[in-house]
Every structure is written in structure tokens, then in C-alpha cells.
């Protein structure tokens, strides 16, 4: 689906953020991208939708190369790449609904968006998504009146409004408490499964990543140093990615997490039951 080849990014200051990165995301595959701060995780996903211009390499979405694209086709392609941000990046003074509808900006003309007269199908979809993320009672609240977890849910709904093929997720849980972090990760990975979306999730929290995704990519100083399943990620790999450190804490936390996860699993099953009609609708379409 998404094929990154020889991606290199050098900032004007001379810092090499990405060094010849090759990465392929299959359709519907969710990848966690881990690595220390400054390893180039954010730069990598920002190169994919060209919020950052890469220096060299190619990024193919299907059979088109995003790197060599003109402005108009870039706009059209960005619609297929939903993005979720660390600090939510909601437009603070706009309402929840306006923020969610802004996901359709790539599809509607200027006057429609200016007058907030979106097509009925977009409005239906926005309500459906808000219901799915549990915020349908807050439609007209301003984004700055929401809590962190709620804001991130709006961010997720906005990204999904684009009807994307791939989600680019930048540290979705870094500003959230541990419980909300898990809920948000569960929501993102769950939605990816429902809709068959691929995703690249930048994440600091290694145990959290291991709990929720099937493939982990470790980035260090702009190079990929690990690519494999969470089960294959051992202390030696973590040392290679992050540098020398006592990793036993992570693994202990890992075990606690498993106990936690068992509890969470039960909750998930309840949630799944609640979501069942929704899932059926998705399956039917």
C-alpha cells in the first residue's frame, strides 16, 4: 500500500533526520514506530504527507509517487492520509463539529467550507464518527472546552472524516494519562481493524506499543534498526534503539500491563458488544 524507499531528509541546518529509510506498510497493517526523541519519527511521518519536504527518496501510495507530486495532486493525495497529532492540533476556537468537518476540506469547495454548508452525507458521517468515538453529545462545544482524551477523540474523528487509506499518527498518547492512553490506542487500532486502514503510529511508550500492534519498527538516528513483531523485541534490541539502559523495568511493567490488559480485555468485549451494530454496518459496506 505505502512504499517508502531510500527516504532521506536533511534539514537546512545540516542535521540528517532520516538516512535512507526503506519501509513498506501493507494494506490494513498497523505499525508502531519507536525510537528516542530526535530519531526522526515525526519527520518520517511528516514526509509521507509532505508537511516536511524530503531531500531524496520516493514514497509510493499505490502507484503514485508522493515526493514528485505537484500542488494540486498533493492536495488530492493528502485526503487519503489521515493525520493524528500529539497535542491534538484541534483548532481551539472552532466547535467539535467544525473540527470534525474540517476533515472534508480536501473534498469541498471554498464557499461550502466557508459557509459551513457541508453536504448532508458529510454531516451524517460526522455524526456517525462522533458517536463512534463517544462524543455525539458535544457537537457544539468549543474544542478548547474539552479534556485531553476528548480532544484526541475529536482528532481521530477528523482524520477519519477524510476517508483515508492510511493513518499517520504522531505520539497520540504522549499528552494523556495512562488509562486514557490505553483507551485512545484501543480506539485507533480498533478503528483501523474495522475500516481496514493501515497506520504508522509514532509512540514513546514501548510497552503500550507492544500491547496494541503486530509490527514494531525501531528508529535510531534516522535509520531503521528493528523491524519485526513485538515478541521479537528484546533487551538487546531496546539497547540498540535507545542506548544502554536497565530494561528490566520495562519488562516488569510489561507483565503488569498484561494483567492490566486482561482486565481491559473484558472491558473491550463489553465495548465490542456495544459497538456491534456499528461493526455490522461497516462490514456490510
Amino acid at each position: 500500500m505505502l512504499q517508502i524507499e531510500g527516504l532521506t531528509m536533511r534539514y537546512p541546518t545540516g542535521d540528517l533526520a532520516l538516512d535512507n529509510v526503506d519501509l513498506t506498510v501493507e494494506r490494513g497493517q498497523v505499525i508502531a514506530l519507536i525510537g528516542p526523541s530526535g530519531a526522526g519519527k515525526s519527520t518520517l511521518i511528516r514526509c509521507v504527507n509532505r508537511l516536511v519536504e524530503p531531500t531524496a527518496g520516493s514514497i509510493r501510495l499505490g502507484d503514485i509517487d508522493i515526493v514528485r507530486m505537484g500542488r494540486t495532486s498533493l492536495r488530492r493525495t493528502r485526503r487519503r492520509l489521515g493525520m493524528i497529532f500529539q497535542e491534538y492540533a484541534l483548532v481551539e476556537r472552532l466547535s467539535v463539529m467544525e473540527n470534525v468537518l474540517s476533515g472534508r476540506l480536501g473534498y469541498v469547495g471554498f464557499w461550502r467550507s466557508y459557509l459551513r454548508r457541508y453536504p448532508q452525507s458529510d454531516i451524517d458521517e460526522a455524526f456517525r464518527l462522533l458517536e463512534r468515538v463517544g462524543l455525539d453529545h458535544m457537537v457544539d462545544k468549543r474544542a478548547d472546552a474539552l479534556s485531553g482524551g476528548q480532544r484526541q477523540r475529536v482528532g481521530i474523528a477528523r482524520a477519519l472524516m477524510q476517508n483515508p487509506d492510511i493513518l499517520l499518527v504522531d505520539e497520540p498518547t504522549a499528552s494523556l494519562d495512562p488509562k486514557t492512553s490505553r483507551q485512545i490506542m484501543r480506539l485507533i487500532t480498533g478503528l483501523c481493524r474495522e475500516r481496514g486502514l493501515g497506520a504508522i503510529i509514532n509512540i514513546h511508550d514501548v510497552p503500550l506499543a507492544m500491547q496494541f500492534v503486530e509490527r514494531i519498527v525501531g528508529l535510531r538516528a534516522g535509520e531503521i534498526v528493528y523491524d519485526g513483531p513485538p515478541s521479537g523485541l528484546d533487551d538487546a534490541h531496546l539497547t540498540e534503539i535507545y542506548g544502554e539502559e536497565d530494561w528490566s523495568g520495562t519488562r516488569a511493567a510489561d507483565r503488569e500491563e498484561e494483567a492490566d490488559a486482561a482486565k481491559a480485555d473484558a472491558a473491550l468485549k463489553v465495548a465490542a458488544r456495544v459497538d456491534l451494530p456499528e461493526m455490522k454496518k461497516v462490514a456490510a459496506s
Partner: protein
Amino acid sequence: MSIAAAAPQAAPRQWRKPPFIRDPRLRYAIYVGALIYLVIGIGSVNFNWDRMVAGLDRGIAFVAAFLAPDFTTRWTDISKGLLESLTMTLIATVFGVILSIPVALGAARNLAPWPIYAVCRSIIAVSRAFQEVVIAIVFVAMFGFGPFAGAMTLAFATIGFLGKLLAEDIEDIDRDQVEAIRATGSSWFQLLNYAIQPQVAPRFIGLCVYRLDINFRESAVIGIVGAGGIGATLNTALGRYEYDSAAAILLSIIVIVFIAEYSSGFIRRRFL
């Protein structure tokens, strides 16, 4: 804890905030130099006590007139002047605001490419370089006496004022929100409407109301150089030594500025 307790009691270490100028000789040279300059400066001012005493009478007459302002004798002139000033102010503010928006967008470094940035910054610099009175003198010479020259002056000054402050506000916006809207595949105008406008709107509205207020006060000043409005009326009253009418004019200006002040506070609270 235990290490600190075990260590022998050392003499307390001194700390003082490092001085702003490190070299003490330079530091004291600057202090002494500034003092000498101040003394010489005060010495160079010519106090003409006789003139001041002579003027005191006129000053007292003027202040006394405030206790008995005369609104009635020249009321038609005053009301006409006030109305002209308000019209001039409103028109100038509306046109100034409309013209300042594109200038501000072009003068924001995070939106405009370098050549457009340079052009828009120059427009702002030219507009801000000249005081309203100077511009008014030029425009009165170009368009003749009257409120048209005044309105042009105020609109021109508004472009520089709002252009600069709005551009700076745009440069200070949260980049994440812009990035997020850009990532949806929005067009440039949609980006303006969704990511930038909501962030700068409250301050922009506040600045517009503030500029309306400034423009009204300036309209009184530029009237004195012939650009119409209440300033012209004030100038006439002062020329005729009608201090009671002048006092009435000044009191009217104060009342209107007060009203503008309170309503601007109200409007800002409403939109923030």
C-alpha cells in the same frame, strides 16, 4: 542525606546575581556619563519664567471655561463637526481594515514568500513612518481642505497600524493547528478560514475597535491642519478665543472616547 551529614561543615558559598555589564570600569563610566548627560540636558532647557507667568492667565481662563462650557452658542458647528468626525472615522476605519488584511497576510513571515513579504512590510513601514498630522498636511495639499483628506489620512494610518499588529499576531499562531488543517488537503483560502482566522479573530476585533477609537481622537488633531471634522471646529473656536465653546468641544470628544472605550471592552469580552 547521609553524605551531606557526614561531610565537614564547609563555609557557605557566596552567590550574587551577575551584573548586566561585567566590566566594573565600563559599568561606572556609563552610570557617570548618564548622570552628566542628564545635568547638561536639564541645563539646556530654556525656562522663560516671564512667558510662563504671562501664559498662566490664559491657562487659567481656559481651565475656568471648563467649569462653564458653552454648548449652546456654537451648537450647530459643534454637532456638525462631531458628525463629520464620526463619519470620517467610521469610513476610514472600515476601508483601512479592509485594506490592512491583505497587507497583514503578506507581511506575515510564516504565510508569505519572501518578495511579497518585502513589499507588504514596506507598505507598513511607509504608513508608520509618518505621523498622522504629516500625512494629513500632504493629503490636504493633494485633495484640498475637508473631511475627504482626513478620511484618506486615517485610512492610510490604519493600514500601517493594523497591518503590523495583525501580521505579528499571525506570526505568533500555533503552528500545529495550521499543520493539521494543511494535512486534510485544504486549499490556501480554506487554511486561512479554518486555521488562521479562528486564532487571530479575537485580537483582530479588539484591534479594530481600538483603531476606531484612535481614529476618532486623531480626527480631532488632523482637523487642525485642515482635514475637516471636529478638529476644524476646535481650531476655529480657539482662534476666536472662545474658550467656553472649545471646552464644550473637548468635553464632547472626551465623552465619545469614553463611550468607545466602554463599548470596546464589552465587544472584546463578547468575542474572546
